[in-house]
């Protein structure tokens, strides 16, 4: 349990200091702006190693936490329970968690009739491309802003920082007009491109790169590496944790984004999962088990990803969340 507890602390990478250079780097700024930063590694063992005794008070806390956990799980459990009922039993007016039999009928029908598989592929494609492009362009830009000198650098960086204050939501009208004139309505690129340039991510990465000791790059430079190679072979490997955090956060945001894909796609063939799902609801009508089955299918991918990458996701969100929203 101590291992999982430590994993949530952003400033305490799972690899101990010394095992790889990243462990000795200062924490990125998102955590520096909160107490989670510098104080993080101060006493990780004392923090996680001690386990308090089971007093009555602690039992009461446990009970409270369990009740709250149950409350939070309840809606999800209801969705799963309903989706497994025979359709005719879903509108009964007494509280029943399990129907007369457990059936996957609703799943089969939803999967066969709808475009869920198509939308899932669309979502996966759009989220992956967006994440790769965001991480690559933002990391390169951050390196350029933090390590190179060129005319106008300060002005341009100031312009990028100002963009943090512009929520994409207030740009829907002009962005849509732009997409119309570019002919990108109802295309994957129309969904992807406006989501790629995220100034907050550049800011996070600039702060991180500023904390990377220049000596490491100097060494490679003296060895004859060009700036391009220094970036890819020294800086990027060193920054793996923060790049992963940015990537995870971007992927979740893109996968779950509703407003922009909703506006820019009307063709069911290019819709993302959340948009398609909302769009298709009327066709399920009052078939309650099918509605719930479609929700379970739509919610499952990220939950499965979370099950496998719990630590990385928790750390990534805590890292990036502070500066990245």
């Amino acid at each position, binding site marked *: 349990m101590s291992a999982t507890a430590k994993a949530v602390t952003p400033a305490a990478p799972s690899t101990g200091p010394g095992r790889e250079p990243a462990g000795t780097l200062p924490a990125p700024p998102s955590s520096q702006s909160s107490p989670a930063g510098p104080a993080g590694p101060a006493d990780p063992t004392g*923090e996680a190693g001690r386990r*308090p005794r089971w007093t009555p008070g602690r039992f009461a806390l446990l009970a409270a936490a369990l009740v709250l956990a149950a409350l939070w799980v309840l809606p999800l459990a209801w969705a799963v329970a309903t989706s497994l009922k025979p359709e005719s039993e879903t*509108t009964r007016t007494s509280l029943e968690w399990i129907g007369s039999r457990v059936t996957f009928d609703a799943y089969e029908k939803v999967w066969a009739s709808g475009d869920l598989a198509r939308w899932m592929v669309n979502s996966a494609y759009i989220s992956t491309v967006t994440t790769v492009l965001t991480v690559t362009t*933002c990391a390169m*830009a951050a390196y350029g802003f933090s390590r190179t000198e060129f005319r106008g650098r300060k002005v341009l960086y100031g312009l990028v920082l100002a963009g943090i204050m512009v929520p994409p939501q207030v740009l829907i009208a002009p962005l849509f007009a732009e997409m119309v004139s570019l002919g990108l309505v109802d295309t994957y690129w129309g969904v992807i491109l406006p989501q790629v340039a995220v100034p907050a991510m550049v800011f996070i990465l600039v702060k991180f790169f500023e904390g990377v000791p220049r*000596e490491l790059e100097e060494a490679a430079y003296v060895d004859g590496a060009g*700036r391009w190679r220094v970036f890819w072979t020294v800086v990027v490997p060193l920054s793996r944790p923060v790049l992963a955090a940015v990537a995870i956060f971007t992927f979740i945001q893109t996968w779950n984004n*509703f407003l922009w894909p909703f506006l820019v796609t009307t063709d069911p063939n290019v819709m993302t999962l959340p948009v398609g799902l909302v769009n298709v609801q009327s066709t399920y009508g009052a078939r309650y088990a099918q509605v719930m089955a479609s929700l379970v299918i739509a919610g499952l991918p*990220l939950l499965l990803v979370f099950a496998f990458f*719990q630590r990385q996701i928790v750390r990534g969100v805590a890292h990036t969340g502070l500066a990245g929203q």
Partner: protein
Amino acid sequence: MTATTPTAPAPPAAEAARTGTGPLSAGRRWTEHGLVFTAPFLLLYALFLVWPVLLGLKMSLGDDNITGTGSTFTGLDNYAEALRDPGVWSSLWNTVWFTLLSTVPLVVTGLVLALLAHHLRVVQWLWRLSWFTPFLLPSGVVGLLWLWMIYPSDFGLADLLLRSFGLDPGIGWLTDTRYAMLSIVLTTVWWTVGFNFLLYLAALQAIPQHLYEAAELDGAGAWRRLRHITLPMLNRTTGVVAVLQLLASLKIFDQVYIMTGGGPDESTRPILQYVYEAGFTGYRIGYASAVSYVFFALIVIVSLIHLRMTRRSREEAAK
């Protein structure tokens, strides 16, 4: 991998790097690389952020329809109309009302859940699983799930549960103007509190343990340790979480659009939905831009407060 690599003339290079005179910072022949590194981002940034900001400004001063044709310059007419438009004011108010209603429970619940998980220290996976996973669900899933859980009064889970406790609520969760917004708030708390929970959990784990040990030696009980160590140490986190929450809540659209469509009687319609209706179903994209910019002004004010707060907290951290 470090400065002690044999081939690197470590001390001089390191010294030069620190003082900013090393080959990396002064190398003139690398100057052009700066633009190479930043160009891809700057291109996308210019095309899909800077340009729409300017285009929106231009569009807000004309009577553009959605295809961007047939626009004539109308000056500040759109803004004047927006300020007179009761729909703008009511949806702005709904947005602010939702923000006020949702921010406090989202911050407080996030803190309480984090305190519980942190102090219990057992089955951390269970707490994360139950409180954080809803955050990973798309708004479409959350909105529809809650819609079907609370809307049908005869077979929805909410009313079934209340009835099994002997209550007959007959609440129009989403159809009564008194409860619709509260239902949206409830849905939102369930959905996104996990994010604040994580931020608080990270902050809690960063509080140095020796503070607690010292307090324990002085005979401070659990309650006093909470009040005099934990909560003060979380002050900065609370500030940041609260402002992030304000900004996130102001941008509400998805849940409302999916669950109530802005109703009943437009009592839950947020400003973003008004922009959507003006521009995308009413085809008045110039007017929609103007309304967006009114909303933008509100966001900028909150962002500036955020900026001042983070700057101050950073200065405090530097002391």
